């Protein structure tokens, strides 16, 4: 897997947005790998992820919990994001805010063209947001840690 590989995520809950004067329905999001431009936002998330991962008191039961959650979802759906929920030391609001800030920098493009803004982020459903966060975390931000 290359860290520079773009990905396509098909929205589970499509929504309408403004595009060239009309309201159109978004169907997918193009995920752009991070660059040094977004290093500040990525570093904050990476730090929170490391803190969350190392703070889990009982890693075996935690990973079992995540696996159980995963089994309810698609087979290729890895929920790295769930580590934040399990962690007792990381404030989930900080994580959400960090991801929102990152997603507004242009790393996610609606239908491959439109940069996400606050009103657009508000329209993304919770499962889609969590999945996007998980993809970004697992494939780019914490890829080196997760591959070991």
């Amino acid at each position, binding site marked *: 897997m290359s860290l520079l590989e773009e990905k396509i995520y098909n929205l589970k809950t499509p929504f309408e947005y*403004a595009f060239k004067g*009309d309201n159109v329905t978004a169907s997918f999001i193009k995920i752009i790998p991070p660059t040094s431009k977004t290093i500040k936002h990525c570093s904050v998330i990476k730090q929170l992820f490391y803190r969350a991962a190392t703070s889990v008191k009982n890693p075996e039961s935690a990973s079992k919990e995540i696996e159980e959650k995963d089994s309810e979802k698609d087979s290729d759906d890895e929920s790295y994001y769930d580590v934040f929920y399990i962690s007792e030391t990381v404030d989930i609001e900080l994580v959400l805010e960090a991801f929102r800030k990152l997603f507004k920098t242009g790393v996610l493009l609606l239908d491959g063209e439109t940069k996400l*803004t606050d*009103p*657009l982020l508000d329209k993304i459903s919770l499962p889609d947001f969590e999945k996007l966060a998980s993809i970004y975390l697992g494939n780019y931000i914490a890829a080196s840690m997760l591959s070991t």
Partner: protein
Amino acid sequence: MSIALANVSVVVNNEPVAIVPNSFKYTEGKGEQTMRAASSGGGAVEQVFSENVEMNFSMVSFGLFNDIDSIETARSWKSSKNNNVVSFSGATSDGKTIERTFTQSAILNDYEVELGADTNFEIEFKSNPAV
């Protein structure tokens, strides 16, 4: 008791816009109708109702403060011709909500930007009827 809506969130081309308070106005774009009387004799009249669809367009207008960001943003909306989408949403404390979207919006007039310590300028879009 009902609560008047005075504070709405305005979004233009997916970007939130900070407007001058109490300056937001819009029309539904339902056009104008006329009612005429057809005489049926003996002083009686029959109603002739007609719909003039000529002006079935919406208008959205609001004030912006004369900071450079707003001036540049307004200029980009003007340059986009009718490729703008304006929407607004609002809620009152009793939980009622309203939302309207205006597609293919364009600034038709050559709006005036007043540069002063206590001035602002008004932007007016014409668009498809509100949905």
